Every structure is written in structure tokens, then in C-alpha cells.
């Protein structure tokens, strides 16, 4: 392929792959022997690749007993899975029990705490309203006696001050 034919490279590859030959390429091929040869070589190479590529994978398959080995491994992992499931269930059960106990405890505590609080409130009310029995004594004539009783330094007798001063 000459340097001038470089621009046809991509179209030649496309033509080799798809078989499609645009009109401008056809015109060029009629006048260019190099490109015609190049296209023929590319088509031959593509045909070889077409037949070879599938061989890279085609026909390959797992060895005999593959299925049995997978099943055995699955069974073993299944036991582990069951074990793990059982452990998970145990853990979940323990957590559920703990949650239930905590909930019941909280409800009981709340109910009890409310009762005590009412009792305490009633007791406090009673205490606030409580009066000593002697209070009633103080409220009747005794209270007047206490009020009129002279304090320290005072006398029972009311002596007018002017008289004392005259004496």
C-alpha cells in the first residue's frame, strides 16, 4: 500500500469486516492494485480469524464430576449456613427476650412510680394541712392570756409613768 493510499486504510478494514464497499472505494479499487491486494489479504485474514476465534473458548468445559463437587461444597456451606442461621436465631431470640423484659420492667416501674407519687402527694397534702392539737388550745382563751402576759421586764401592774417621775 502506498502512502497515498493510507487514507483508504479504514475503509479497507471496514470493507473486509462487513463486505460493504462504498462507491468511492470501489472506484479507487478499480485503479489501485495495491489496495485491491490489501483488501483481499484482509478478507482472508478476517476469514481465518472467524474460524479461529471460537476455538479459543468453544468446546472447553469443566472436568467430569464438576457438578458433584459443587453440590458437595454447597452441602458443606449449607451446613455452615444452617449453623450461622441457628446462631442468628439464638441471638435474635435473646435480644427479643431482653427487649420484652426491659419493656415490661419499664411499664411496671412507671405504673409503680406513679402510685408512690400519688401516695406521696396525698401524704404531703395531709402534712401540709396537719395542725398540732395544742394549736386549738393556743387559739382559745390561752392565746389571749399569752398576749396580755407581760414580757420580760414588764409588770403586771400598770403604773402611770408621770407618777413614777414625780416620786
Amino acid at each position: 500500500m502506498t502512502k497515498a493510499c493510507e487514507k483508504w486504510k479504514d475503509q479497507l478494514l471496514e470493507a473486509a469486516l462487513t463486505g460493504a464497499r462504498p462507491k468511492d472505494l470501489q472506484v479507487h479499487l478499480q485503479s489501485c492494485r495495491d489496495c485491491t491486494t490489501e483488501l483481499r489479504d484482509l478478507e482472508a485474514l478476517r476469514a481465518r480469524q472467524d474460524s479461529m476465534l471460537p476455538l479459543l473458548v468453544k468446546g472447553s468445559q469443566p472436568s467430569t464430576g464438576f457438578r458433584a463437587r459443587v453440590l458437595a461444597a454447597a452441602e458443606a456451606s449449607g451446613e455452615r449456613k444452617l449453623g450461622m442461621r441457628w446462631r442468628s436465631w439464638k441471638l435474635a431470640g435473646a435480644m427479643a427476650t431482653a427487649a420484652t423484659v426491659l419493656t415490661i420492667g419499664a411499664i411496671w416501674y412507671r405504673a409503680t412510680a406513679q402510685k408512690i407519687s400519688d401516695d406521696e402527694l396525698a401524704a404531703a397534702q395531709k402534712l401540709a394541712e396537719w395542725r398540732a392539737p395544742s394549736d386549738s388550745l393556743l387559739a382559745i382563751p390561752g392565746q389571749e392570756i399569752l398576749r396580755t402576759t407581760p414580757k420580760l421586764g414588764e409588770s403586771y401592774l400598770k403604773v402611770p409613768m408621770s407618777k413614777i417621775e414625780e416620786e
Partner: protein
Amino acid sequence: MTGTYVSALIAKAEAQTTDAGFGERIAENQRRVFQIAFSVLGNSADAEDVAQEAFLRAYRKLDSLREAEKFRAWVNRIVFRLALNRKRGHRRGMARDMAWQITEVPTVVDGAKEAEKQVMLNQLRREIECLPGKLRSVLQLSLVEEMDAGDVGAVLGIPAGTVRSRLHTARKVLLEVMR
């Protein structure tokens, strides 16, 4: 008569020991799953390991993969990903850089034609390995039996049209580098 009896026994044992239907799923998919791993890794031992791992993972998710089509799509994706991971691991360890050279294709050559074929196959493997990742994945998966553009797209998470377009580009590159 004995064969039937043995088959029945095996079926019974399978039903008892593993989830029902899993053995059937393996039988339906094992060839394709193996080939997907093989297309990436290029050797049977690794491909089989990866295929087994993929089936075991599918087994753990069997409850959600009861439908055959779901199972097929899921196991295709997982085996491809596992194979890529394995390959990356190998590359990191620099242990299997000759993976494509160690294949199941017969190494004993019979005559010039066979030798030429062998040379061509080795060259193809090398060139495929040199392709950009996106083109290589599409080409490798397209080589697997029973995998159409839709299946390849499902594995790679791209539309079937993109698969066809990348495949065309990959073939074009291969043609150019090998001419």
C-alpha cells in the same frame, strides 16, 4: 434398570442434601459459566475454581434466584466478575502472565497446518490481551457459546447495541494489528 435406580438414588440424595433444583441449575449452566471464566482466565484449573465459587455464591442466594432466567443472568455476571478479580490477583502476583498460553488447546501439533493454526491461536490470544479492557471483555464474552449480544450486555451492564459496536471495533483492531 440399575442405572435408573442409581439415578433415582442420586436425585433423592440431592433433594435431601441440598436445596431442590440446585443440581439442575448447575447442569443447565455449568458449561457456559465455565466458558465465561475460561474466556477471561485462559486456563481450566482457574476457570473451574471460579465457576465453582460462582455456583456456591448462587447457592447462598438460591431463595431469590429460583427463576431459571434470573439464575442464569446472575451467575453469568458473578462468574465474570470473579474471573476478573482472579486475573487481577494473578497480575498483581505476577504469577500467571502466561495464562493464555496455558490452554486446553492441544499442544501436540500434527503437521504444518496444525502448527500454523497453533501460531495463529497464540497470536490471537496475545492480541486480545492487548486490547483495551472494554473491547476485550466484549470480545471474550462473545466467544462463549450460547451468549448473544443481549447476554453479554447484561453481564457488562451495557445495551446490546453497544456490545455489537464494541465487538465490531475489537474485530477491526484485531484485523489491523494482525495483518
